[in-house]
């Protein structure tokens, strides 16, 4: 899939993934790649501006992990993030159904 197409939905994908559990950037990329069976392959660096945007918007919180050999910034979804995710999911389902109806007609 073209990376441009995925980038438009990156924030929704990240919120959905973080709703399943906290994670750091690298783990989130792997989880997205695994869950999409390799369909979502985009420049990995793009995940960080998106995570920072979501955190600034009050949807995520993050902290450096401690006690590991490698320091990692762990992101978790907040209550506001869950509410935004539900709104985005509703919009996405409406959009997907409408596209399906048009292209299948």
């Amino acid at each position, binding site marked *: 899939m073209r990376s441009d197409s995925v980038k438009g939905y990156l924030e929704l994908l990240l919120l959905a993934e973080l709703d399943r559990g906290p994670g750091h950037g690298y783990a989130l990329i792997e989880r997205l790649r695994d869950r999409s069976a390799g369909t979502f392959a985009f420049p990995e*660096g793009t995940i*960080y*501006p998106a995570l920072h945007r979501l955190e*600034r918007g009050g949807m995520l919180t993050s902290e450096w992990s401690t006690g590991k050999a490698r320091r990692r*910034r762990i992101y978790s979804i907040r209550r506001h993030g869950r509410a935004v995710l539900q709104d985005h999911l509703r919009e996405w389902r409406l959009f997907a159904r409408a596209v399906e109806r048009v292209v299948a007609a």
Partner: protein
Amino acid sequence: MTIEEYLARLRRSLGPGLHRRALAEVEAHLRESAAEVGEDEAVRRFGSPEELARELRGPRATRLAAVGAFVLLLSFVALYPVAENTLPPAPWPAGEQPSQLAWKQDLVTALLLFAAGAAAVGTARLRRANGSLLAATAVAVVAGSAAAIVGVVLSFEWADAVPGTPGWLPYVGFANVAVAAVAAALVLRAARAAS
């Protein structure tokens, strides 16, 4: 490209400012990825450092421009008590101010109220640092800059019309214009980073 070369290019593209957290996250990610797929592939998968820098820099530049707009407005707020407490009383009766001073004074007030309104809209969008924040900041800075320029003209005319006006009054106006120029430069920089 090695991880060190990638980080150096990213640092260069980010330019001045604190980006320690982003750089630390990028480095941790690249090293973890390199341990699995090798350094070259990890760097290739990460994408262009210049493109990443552009995305990381944009919101920061926008917030800095918003701070510039606030400093500009604060410079007017700080000026008001100074003018009230140091300028001699006007020699004309109340309500009979010379028209060339009155309309400029009204214009400065209107421009500042407009700028304050735009800044209030921008404040509501401050956390997001998106296009609407940049637009509100640009409007506030343009209105504030216009007020500063009209204010300088007004200060010269005021000094001519009111005997005993301190000679430093126009310099205060020039200081406002200088703050406005810095704020405008920050808005242009943010617009370039966002485009």
